[in-house]
């Protein structure tokens, strides 16, 4: 980490609408960076890891920071802050563990500013929001002067800090589909301190319960800090589908998840420790998610 200085010089542009932001970005392609909350970008700039000529600030585009109900699911604007997600009744009602995930990021001061879109677009393996959103089948919307396209969130992360967004595209919205049947989700993470710390390893799970057969109907599992990008562990998921929720099944799923992950050694943790964490946290996330799904079947409401 370099010495923290003042910010390097840049030109600052503040578009007022998504259309304007798209054309400004198209004009400055290559030497401009989109600036959301800035809690990460300001640090990268102070450390001179990046020195963009132009900063395109998105805080003045109101349409990007709404949370709305949509076809049984919800759509979250990319500029929505974690604080807004944490306190959203709509998010809590439909995807409660997203509120819990948001509430465990940074501090209230960070959450008042940091955004979901920034967390995804930074494409860092330690970001907490990609994994839970991936287990919900999130679809993102990318806009540019050329038009709009939708992309499954799991196809967005290409490599460390690299996304599938073209240089002229802006992430505008994250869509979460309606959750089928009796579903529960959880995101559990390990970190050295209980607050203000980067995640060492995290696991998200979303379980749909088959009430008639008393087995896992569907499951999605995604990992943070377990490879260069946030990743789904599809062998573990495939194994669990149709299984009764036994300790043996959990153990086997956790082993499969561990085999699919590619954690590395960093100053924060050794590879072997991360593998151990993936085992423990996968089981923990699955237990919590399945517990919520089964509680929903007990209440009889989908």
């Amino acid at each position, binding site marked *: 980490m370099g010495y923290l200085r*003042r910010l390097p010089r840049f030109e600052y542009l503040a578009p007022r609408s998504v259309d304007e932001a798209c054309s400004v970005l198209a004009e400055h392609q290559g030497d401009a960076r989109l600036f959301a909350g800035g809690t990460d970008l*300001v*640090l990268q700039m*102070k450390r001179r890891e990046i020195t963009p000529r132009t900063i395109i600030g998105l*805080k003045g585009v109101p349409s990007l920071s709404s949370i709305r109900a949509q076809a049984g699911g919800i759509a979250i604007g990319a500029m929505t802050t974690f604080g807004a997600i944490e306190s959203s009744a709509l998010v809590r009602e439909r995807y409660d563990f997203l509120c819990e995930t948001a509430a465990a990021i940074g501090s209230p*001061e960070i959450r*008042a500013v940091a955004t979901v879109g920034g967390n995804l677009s930074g494409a860092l393996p330690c970001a907490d929001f990609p994994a839970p959103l991936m287990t919900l089948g999130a679809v993102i919307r990318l806009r540019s002067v050329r038009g709009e396209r939708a992309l499954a969130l799991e196809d967005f992360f290409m490599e460390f800090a690299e996304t599938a967004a073209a240089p002229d595209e802006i992430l505008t919205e994250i869509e979460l589909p309606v959750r089928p049947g009796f579903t529960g989700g959880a995101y559990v993470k390990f970190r050295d301190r209980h607050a*203000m710390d980067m995640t060492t390893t995290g696991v998200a799970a979303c379980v749909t319960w088959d009430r008639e057969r008393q087995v896992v109907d569907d499951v999605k599992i995604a990992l943070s800090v377990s490879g260069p990008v946030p990743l789904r562990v599809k062998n573990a998921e495939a194994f669990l589908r149709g299984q009764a929720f036994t300790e043996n099944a959990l153990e086997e799923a956790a082993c499969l998840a561990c085999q699919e992950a590619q954690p590395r050694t960093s100053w924060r943790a050794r590879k072997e420790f991360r593998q151990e964490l993936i085992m423990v946290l996968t089981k923990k996330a699955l237990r919590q998610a399945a517990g919520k799904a089964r509680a929903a079947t007990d209440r009889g409401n989908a």
Partner: protein
Amino acid sequence: MKPLSPVSLKVNGEPYELSIPPWRTLLEVLREDLSLTGTKRSCQEGQCGACTVLLDGHAIYSCLFLAVEAQGKEILTIEGLARSAGALDTIQKAFVETGAVQCGFCTPGLIMATKSFLDENPAPSEEEVRRATVGHLCRCTGYFQIIEAILAAARERAAKGAAA
């Protein structure tokens, strides 16, 4: 590259018309252009909480926030908390009376965070107070007196509210 942008800031109720470069943080502008040095500069990387101010009522780290992006928002710093000279805010009084101030460097940030927190959650549990202050480092007190001060401030504010 335009070196200076005209920026209108509203700080502690006072309007300021400034001409500042866009790469200046809100912390730098408060301290260096407006001489409001109650807001402290310490880690400058969003870890310590010393630079906390309120932006439209929400506590934020001013070291991570561009001053140009504070345009049109209400900024409240420690200087604006007490209504008049010599009269301390309830939260400030609680910090003094509880012994939550030693060297005092983290105090303005913690008091501003407390203001935002109690405005939202007037009757918090101790656990909630601990969670609300995770973004603040204090190297003197060991935090116990700070947590006590915040709980005392909540009680005092509730008593005042009930009396009014």
